[in-house]
């Protein structure tokens, strides 16, 4: 008899179900995002399930293909994102998850590069620059996390945040959370840092040349990404499920609001700002950890 307290439920069944639900949640979030954005702009906006209509429609379209290579990488991109989401849900090593998520971006970049198209090329270049921007911050946050909890394992982080042991990570790493919020727009591809897919400059960047099914696959990958990024943020800071979901919602709303009150910045501005502000936040937080001695060697 399996009860709700059975570790199997939480270790295997729950992650598996979430992995299947992830694109649906991600899609719905994007739908909510579009609706909210529309409301903020005084529009009615599309229905919340619009992203699914879009994807389904794309699967019913003809494929116009440039070559095989970029299709291979698109599928690889999707699979890698799914894989990293799975690793995240199944509580693998955080460092490996971060790198796997980075690998998905590498695949996207290679996909963009391998079509010899003007906008794909520029978009891939920008995608790389974006990676250059957010990955250090992300890794540093992971490192800070390890410094406080003494492990890269998610299980350890979670057991660490149990209130019985010590205070939630949120109290020790508040600025790291802010740094994550700072790179959130890059990962969710939202203004002010949505430069790789800057519609008004380079069409859709690396995604420009995809049609039909493969565009649909890339879109699904994006659903997973949204889920991944929010789950990643929710992962850290508090043990309480309600507060954790609240934090995810906060991050999501934050990204929507920021998207709506900012213009898109240029690449150089993005790199400068994220490096300066992000590194500053992390260094201050690090100093705080070191001074208060809340770290484990």
């Amino acid at each position, binding site marked *: 008899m399996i009860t709700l307290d059975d570790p199997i439920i939480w270790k295997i069944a729950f992650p598996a179900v979430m992995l299947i639900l992830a694109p649906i949640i991600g899609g719905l979030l994007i739908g909510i995002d579009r609706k909210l954005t529309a409301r903020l702009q005084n529009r009615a906006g599309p229905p919340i399930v619009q992203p699914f209509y879009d994807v389904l429609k794309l699967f019913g379209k003809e494929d116009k293909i440039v070559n095989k290579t970029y299709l291979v990488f698109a599928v690889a991109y999707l699979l890698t994102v799914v894989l990293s989401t799975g690793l995240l849900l199944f509580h693998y090593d955080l*460092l490996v998850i971060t*790198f796997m998520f980075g690998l998905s971006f590498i695949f996207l970049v290679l996909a963009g*590069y391998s079509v010899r198209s003007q906008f794909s090329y520029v978009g891939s270049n920008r995608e790389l620059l974006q990676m250059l921007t957010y990955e250090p911050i992300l890794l540093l946050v992971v490192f800070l996390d390890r410094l406080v909890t003494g492990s890269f394992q998610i299980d350890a982080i979670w057991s660490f945040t149990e209130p019985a042991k010590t205070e939630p990570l949120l109290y020790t790493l508040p600025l790291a959370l802010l740094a994550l919020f700072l790179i959130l727009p890059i990962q969710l591809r939202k203004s002010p840092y949505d430069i790789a897919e800057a519609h008004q400059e380079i069409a859709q960047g690396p995604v*420009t040349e995809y049609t039909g099914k493969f565009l649909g696959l890339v879109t699904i990958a994006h659903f997973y990404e949204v889920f991944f990024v929010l789950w990643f943020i929710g992962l850290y800071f508090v043990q309480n499920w309600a507060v954790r979901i609240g934090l995810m919602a906060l991050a999501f709303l934050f990204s929507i609001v920021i998207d709506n009150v900012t213009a898109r910045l240029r690449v150089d501005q993005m790199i400068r700002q994220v490096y300066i502000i992000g590194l500053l936040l992390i260094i201050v937080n*690090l100093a705080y950890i070191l001074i208060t001695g809340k770290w484990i060697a």
Partner: protein
Amino acid sequence: MDGLLLLSLTVLVPVLFGIISYLVPGYNLKKYAVILCALVLSVASLLILYNGPQNLTVESINIGMSLPVSTIIIALDFLLLLVFLYFGYKDREYKVLGLAVLQLALLAYLELFVAGGEEAGITFVIDDLSIVMCLIVSLIGSLILLYSIGYMKGDKNVSSFFLIMMVFLGDMNALIFANDLTWLFFFWEGTTLCSFLLIRHYRDEPSIKASDRALWMNLLGGIALVCGIILIEMMYNTRFLSELFTAQATMPGALSFLPAAAIILPFAFMAVGAFTKSALMPFNSWLTGAMVAPTPVSALLHSSTMVNAGVYMLIRIAPLILIFGGGLLSTVITIVGGFSFMFCALLALSQTDSKRILAYSTISYLGLIAMCTGINTWLAITAAVALLVFHAVSKGLLFLCVGEITHIIGSRDIEQMQGLIAKAPLVTVITVIGLISLMAPPFGIFVGKWLAFQSASTFTQIGWSLVAIFFIIFGSIFSVFYYSRWAGKLLATKPAETAPPAHHDWYMEIPLIILAAGIFVSVALTTIFFTQLIDLPDIYGQEPGGLVVGEVLRSAFGGFSPLMFLILFIVILLIPILIIRVPKTSLTPTYSCGTGKEPDIGGGYFETLIGESKLLKYLNPIGILLLAILFLAVLL
């Protein structure tokens, strides 16, 4: 099997075959000599692996009469320096002349005044580290030899080329096994000579210039090394590396003005020697200059021989530094390594010449290895050895690929390599595999970086740990940048581009295929490698619980399974490759705002921002400053 026999197989046989190939007429005969040599070398190295660790003492050689090896080596050593003097004089290169004279003086001082009596000791040590190194040198070296059969066809200096290549391999093997420091010094200078001769292979203006630069920088390193040896003999009273572990350090009267902590000084000198050999930051220019040499030479220098000697030395002395309390020295080595890692990656970002990119990336990865030896924990040294192996395989492969690509398109510029996959699918796919193996999980370099990251997280002083983490993160990201850009260039095809029938030169392509397979095999065997071939001195202790649990690499903070991820990686790429079919009817041109014109793509190397001319003028002084700090750290 007899260790001595194996040793002579790995050291003397290449030299012998080299001489044979030099003497026999005709390319075909030379070819067979080379192939035979490669075979013997590979088999010998595998036998050494099979045979396991042992210590050997070689005192004399019997060829009719008994010759003391030490004397021969000392004689050869002086001869070598005279050769350097000759070249310095010939090229009017006064730096070389001066340094060679200085080195001669120091060597004479060492032999005449410092060297203790003729006490016997272990002259060659075959331990796990040297076995790993020997495997790298012999296996990858052999493949490069095979490859150069195809590559050097028609070259007019091919006889001397093969001779030097093979001597180089033998010399390198000897260097790896040498335990007697004076012998080690001879082999060390031997690699300098071989690389010098190989770099000036084409005998034209740029090669001569580059070779002279390589020579004087390496002579500088030689001086540092000989200083280190002199000091070791003075302070530790031994000339055997293996005896240093148990040696008692005493400050000799002549050096009594130095503080007590200066017993670590010889290792600082040896580290500087290693830096020059590995071309770390202030000395990087010789390695980038060496790109004028034929590509197999570059491959040899970068992957299996020359530069590895430097980091090998660092790994060798790392436990000694730990024993004799050189924490500060280690920290500086970390900084120098990390500095090279990050900034050479940044420099590589601004390059278009594929060989220069590879050169900078080599320096950057050697920096990472040096950094690991600086962190100097069990995990870090493991990371260093792992990186050494994986880097050698991937980098060797990439250099050979570049050589082949140069043969196909006649250019080393990565801009010219656009859409190569349509022209030469095999070599392109292999190159892309090589590139991905240097940046992406789960390949070897990633395993190494992961270990380095883990070990940097445990670095004893948290402040320096942060600096190390910073270097690792940014260096890795920069590497990802330039490698993926290059890979993208290779893959960028026009729609419906058809391939002309490619010409296959199997001498060149078989090594490529073997090395590419080697990348996958090496990842698959990672865990075995870590359990079987990493045996570190007791000073490091053992990682609690061990590094490998089942198929999973595990550190104190986390773990992952390379094999599982390798399989996942292959599956992720194979599924689409097998499933996707592209019908001819659905081919379309790319979106070009409706004009229907094919775009040119390229550029974007940020030369104005991070070009060599911009960065190096700041980086070189900083590198020199770091070296100064290194000595200060020892003396203060």
